[in-house]
């Protein structure tokens, strides 16, 4: 919803008169008010600001500026990372030759980017082998770094695909609390709808307060039906019902939300296992995709998350969110090296179109170069 800030300004500007709304582009303000009240009258006007992200509005007002600039946006999202990384490297290398001390500093720089020790050491090994004790230009270091990162990431850059063989294609979303599962589902729902697919959402987070409402808002924005039950209901049962319904209505894509859970909570992980098990009762091939949503700000613990969720739910792909902050996505490199799980999408903002396919080269370049 990073369009909201702009829109928010617009709204604020109107309400307050004096707020810095100079940055707010005009068109958004036009779009906000009416749909909001129509959709969720109970909410603050703030909800209204989200609404333009929904299908009709997004198609008209938002997409034009957004589409042309997604790479820039991704880079801007990664900019802090890259700047820091490159600054560090430049700082290190303009000063010294490539000696042990320099390599140690470089190790720090890479670890600081959350790249993980294994990847860091691989980059260092390459450098040590080829360049030791030679003067090395900062650009070369970046090049080596980018190549190495890209090499690790290339095999996992697999875009999200709906094979069309399954009706419905069942996609289960898993992850720890607060990584952005529901938001990602909302964005994907919008995308699948623009692709002309029929979509059904299952509000499987029956634990957190208002999680069902949150998904319902996304459902209404994107014109997609949401299957839900009361809070505290059995998530597995809900998933089963949603799948039956999707089959009956010949839905193309069924996306199932789940409650966030820490991967070391045995009971909660068993609950997730049950969701998968119950889905298989209805369709032995389901879920066809299990997407783990990872928060880019997460450190080395992300590795443990991948491990645990893979074990319990058989993760088929990773979505990394919140790359629009200062967080470096470096941990993704470590994860790719270790697990080879496809990275299917990146979240670089809160707008519907801020969910982007993962491109290894761009990601690597964005990390290695400012």
């Amino acid at each position, binding site marked *: 919803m990073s369009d909201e800030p702009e829109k928010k300004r617009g709204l604020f500007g109107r309400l307050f008169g004096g707020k810095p709304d100079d940055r707010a582009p005009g068109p958004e303000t036009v779009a906000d008010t009416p749909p909001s009240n129509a959709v969720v009258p109970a909410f603050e*006007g703030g909800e209204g600001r989200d609404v333009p992200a929904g299908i009709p509005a997004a198609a008209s007002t938002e997409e034009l500026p957004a589409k042309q600039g997604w790479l820039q946006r991704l880079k801007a999202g990664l900019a802090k990372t890259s700047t820091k990384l490159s600054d560090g490297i430049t700082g290190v290398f303009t000063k010294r030759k490539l000696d042990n001390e320099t390599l140690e500093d470089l190790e720090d720089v890479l*670890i600081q980017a959350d790249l993980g020790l294994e990847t860091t050491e691989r980059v260092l090994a390459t450098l040590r082998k080829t360049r030791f004790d030679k003067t090395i230009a900062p650009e070369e270091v970046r090049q080596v770094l980018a190549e190495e990162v890209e090499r690790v990431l290339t095999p996992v850059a697999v875009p999200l695909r709906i094979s069309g063989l399954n009706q419905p294609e069942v996609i289960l979303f898993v992850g720890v609390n607060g990584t952005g599962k529901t938001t990602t589902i909302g964005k994907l729902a919008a995308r699948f709808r623009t692709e002309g697919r029929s979509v059904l959402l299952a509000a499987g987070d029956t634990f957190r*307060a208002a999680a069902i409402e949150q998904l319902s808002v996304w459902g209404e924005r994107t014109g997609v039906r949401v299957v839900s039950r009361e809070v505290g209901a059995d998530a597995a049962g809900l998933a089963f019902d949603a799948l039956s319904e999707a089959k009956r209505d010949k839905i193309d894509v069924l996306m199932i939300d789940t409650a966030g859970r820490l991967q070391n909570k045995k009971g909660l992980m068993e609950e997730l296992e049950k969701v998968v098990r119950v889905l298989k009762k209805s369709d032995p091939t389901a879920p066809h995709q299990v997407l783990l949503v990872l928060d880019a700000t997460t450190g080395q613990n992300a590795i443990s998350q991948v491990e645990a969720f893979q074990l319990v739910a058989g993760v088929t792909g990773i979505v990394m969110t919140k790359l629009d902050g200062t967080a470096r996505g470096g941990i993704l490199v470590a994860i790719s090296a270790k697990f080879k799980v496809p990275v299917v999408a990146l979240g670089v903002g809160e707008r519907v179109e801020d969910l982007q396919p993962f491109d290894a080269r761009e990601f690597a370049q964005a990390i290695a170069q400012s």
Partner: protein
Amino acid sequence: MFQSLSDRLSGVFDKLTRRGSLSESDVNDAMREVRRALLEADVALDVVRDFTDKVKAKAVGANVVKSISPGQMVIKIVNDELVAMLGSDASPIDLNAQPPVTILMVGLQGSGKTTTTAKIGHRLTTRDKKKVLMASLDTRRPAAMEQLIILGHQITVDVLPIVAGQTPLQIAMRAQETARTGGFDVLLLDTAGRTTIDEELMDEVAEVKRATSPHEVLLVADALTGQDAVNTAKAFEARVGVTGIVLTRVDGDGRGGAALSMRAVTGRPIKLIGVGEKWDALEDFDPKRIAGRILGMGDIVGLVERAAQTLDAGKAMAIAEKMRKGSFDLDDLSEQLKQVEQLGGMGSIMGMMPGIGKMKKQIEAAGGIDEKMIKRQRAIISSMTPHERRNPKVLDGKRKRRVAAGSGTKPEDVNRLLKQHRDMADMMKMMKKTPGMMGKMAGMMGLGGGGGFGGGMGGGQPSAAELEAMQKELAQLDPQAIAQLPKDVQEALKALPKAGQQQASKTATLPGLGGGLPGLGGGRLPGLGGPALPKGSFPFGGRKK
């Protein structure tokens, strides 16, 4: 949390203590290891560098190198610096102002602000008997405001009604007005999550702060955060100004580096930690306890908490009762083994026992703990008939061969298990005869009595007060109690590092384990295959170093 950091550090320390004298390069090597350990635990680089520099400066001094045990000196310095970095005293939420006391919650998206707001509201209402009003300024995330209303309903704390179309600032002003006129003691303002580079949103929250002059501004941050923790902390401190930090998801298995970074970067205390999904899963942050855990001093309170969380208190009590009556059969042993598994296995339990960090290393050196052994032992028991389980004596050679074949083990393994069961039963009898401190402890924790934790806890979560009382009691353990212990446990105690009287008395909690944990009875851990160690030696380090 903190477990693997602790493991790494104790590895470094082991190397240090093995040396008779330390050169400067020894210290440097050790500091490099410490640095790596901290970095792997997601402690921010700047903070790590600052930390190692400080330790180095003190450790390289002449005093250390010339002292009798330089290794210990370095460890002490690291310890002191770590405590200094975490802050030495707990710093709870400050409500010492004219009501309504406004508390502003800020943080990134998904860090847990709304949940934490509700937890604080719950705590202030129930524990501190305050009249609390909560208000959500999150006009962005779908259903965020509704979420707080639902939470308020669940915990019976008042929430400001939603008025559509208001800006966060307007809501904040309305909330303060409502709090004033409604005679509320505390006003909690939940805000939308925001990225720190979003200037407009940072301006927005800064403006809310200016307008409401909150007494506390709490930065809610995810304990699993990586290097970005430092950016987040710096940005919120610089743009908004925070008075304290709330770490969430501390119940995850992260290494907790974010705790160190945030505290160090902002200089603000970590006030609270979120440790679970329940409303009362919010604790005051106690730096000393955390530092102890990081340094492998153990966290017995944490262990008891975890036990209470995972174990079935009813079952534990039933087993403890059986033990007291001397009717502890193999079914009960199996149940107990299961509980050890549920607690995360022997390795994990031992990691939290004070002073065991070192022994763990020795055990690993002797072949390590085979966590699968517990599974195998349970398989052996499962392969017995109910009659055999109740009366192990009927197991003759033929039956043992059958059981071994049925469980995919060897008759020796069956024998070992049976001996373990017998030894435990003997130990139970002994415990019964010693009504002193140990008996008391056994009753208190259900540990010495063998029933697993939680038995004596009234069947529920231990309250903070209970834990505190327990901690005090543990600290006061009479050294004489040690003399009453079985011999092999005493030997183990001797092998423990002598770290001053306080530490020694803390280690007296060990016996509880000696008596109670299944498989420990025969001087052998489950999963620590007997042959790996000379017979009769206590696997914890009965052998002299």
